[in-house]
């Protein structure tokens, strides 16, 4: 199935790198990544993935526990 994972974080590019490092380890196909950065370190990342529900859930939780991530939503 295809899902969109929306991530909010507070350490700019470093947050993006941490999130990408996490996704790299997931068993999903990444279809798209985009992000918008604010001037204060805030960043919104949108990742479109295809994969099994359980793998996407694994990703959601792994991203959620990153210290600088403030929100994760799976749509």
């Amino acid at each position, binding site marked *: 199935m295809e899902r969109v994972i929306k991530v909010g974080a507070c350490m700019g590019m470093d947050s993006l790198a941490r999130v990408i490092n996490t996704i790299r380890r997931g068993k999903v196909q990444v279809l798209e990544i985009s992000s918008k950065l604010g001037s204060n370190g805030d960043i919104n990342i949108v990742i479109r993935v295809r994969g099994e529900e359980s793998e996407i859930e694994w990703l959601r939780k792994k991203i959620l526990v990153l210290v*600088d991530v403030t929100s994760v939503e799976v749509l």
Partner: protein
Amino acid sequence: MIKIFQLSVKLFKPGKQCILVIPFGDALGTRGDGHGNSIKIRAADALVRAMKNLGVRHVFGIPGGSIMPVYDALYDAEDIKHYLFKHEQGAIHAADAYGRITKKPGVVLVTSGPGATNLVTGLANAYMDSSPLVAISGQVATPILGRDGFQETDIIGVTFPITKLNMQVRSPDDVVSAFTTGYIVSTEGRPGPVLIDIPRDVLLGSTGSIEPVPKIHPKAFGGEPSREEILKALRLLLNAERPVILVGGGVCWSGAWDDVITLAEILWAPIVSTFPGKNCVPNDHPLYLGPSGMHGRLEADAALANADVVLAVGTRFSDRTVGRFKEMNMKAIIHIDIDPSEIGKNVRTEVGIVSDAKKALKAMLRELPSAIQEEYNRQHSGRRSFIAWLKEIRRKYEEHIEARAGDMKPFAPWKVLKVLRRTVPPSTIVTTGVGSHQMWCELHWDVYIPGTFITSAGLGTMGFGLPAALGAKIAASNRPVMLIDGDGSFQMTMNNLSLVRDYGLPIIAVIFDNRALMLVKQWQIYMYSRRVIATEFTKNPDFVKIAEAYGIEGYRPSSYEEIESIVRRALRTDEPVIIDIELDNEKDIVLPWVKPGEWLTNAVPPEGLEVDLIWKG
């Protein structure tokens, strides 16, 4: 006048905010000159002052160009003692062990480039074993950043996947807040390593921002568990035929061993553990059967394999512990863990409770009405026969190896451990290397006091043992510290032996000297048709002479009695010692053993021992 400041850190939690309060013993707020002007100080000095006020008393490291401002600031810091290691890997393993013992992050200082890259293994080790530490790496000055300057490495890029958090500080005003953040984050929730990279010009810059305000607020997972989940878990456990409690390393961090034991006693549930979990429950408790899994005890494998309900506490369900997930998934699993990403990661859970282990277990004990206990005690006498069967497996195994101890000449490794165990006090902290000697410890070293067994479980880092022993001795100077190492592991970091005399750290180092990378050789024998390659040392250095070279007494004993008397003397005189235990590398095979990918009931027992690990009722 000493002012007490309090740092309030708001912890994110949906719908609820808790406050973590850290007291400071010294004024840390922006200083004034009495005329309304704030006084600026060097960022490196502000950093060292923040360290002191957060309670840092020991730091571990090696200086170099980029980190020199911090060392210069340490020159005046009488309350902070620096330990100069011989390799940064040694410094960070020491900090890792220090953190496990004190439950406060160990602090490491290194220079940029090679100093920083030498931390990589140590960071990964701490990350895998959820150990708190803060590493500070110097970095080239900001104008040179990204220009491939001398000793410039993008250590942030390198360490993203092996740190709980890492950050590069670009302004002197952020130095103190970055360190404060790292210090808090490393111990908050599931502990882990934090790396802070600071360019030299930033350290040398002036700042008035010396207030310890963290940059980000750590999220707090797992408050009070829901009553519904707790009741569901209890119902499963009470109605189980053969409930088993699986204890992981999280139990140690949470200090929940008493609650585990109380629950096990009420439920008549055998306790098994992961390898790190061995450190989290008194191993001499009658319901504790030992670690299960690849190099676990037969009785623990049998308990876990035949359980119908498993209560797993503070564990990530490593394949090394459970063998295979397919069979595990056929059980009803209750999983308590502070890290939500662990629940359902490797096994399907019937009840997943995101909580601190102690909180969840206390809630379970509260909800367990005594009436139910009596009722079920009558109903479940079957649990007692299950436990009696497991104990019978233990008896058979122990008898079997005892009868064959003489075949392993000059020493049976497990018997050496039994001799050492009865010789050193229960409070002795033991660290290990990685290999067969470590697996023998998993099987035969009894941890009497939780928190006294420190090993590299998740990453399996050879060379961890010696620096970890030094870090442990620094953390607990009034307790004996004993290293049980392999000859291969020891040679990876033995350069750090010099610290024993430099700083008066009298450790007892026992080397299981089989002149081999024995655990790998064992795999070659069993899994690669005995095609033994690159695992036997033709000649080892003389470890007794190595000891002498470092001003330490060295011995090569020839009997168990001699081992005992050497250790007793070292304890009595509080002197360091290195004991070279020669082992036969044809006979030093660690069994039982569950081969990778196998189920627990297929454990290979020691030769000649016949046991059926499948419960027939």
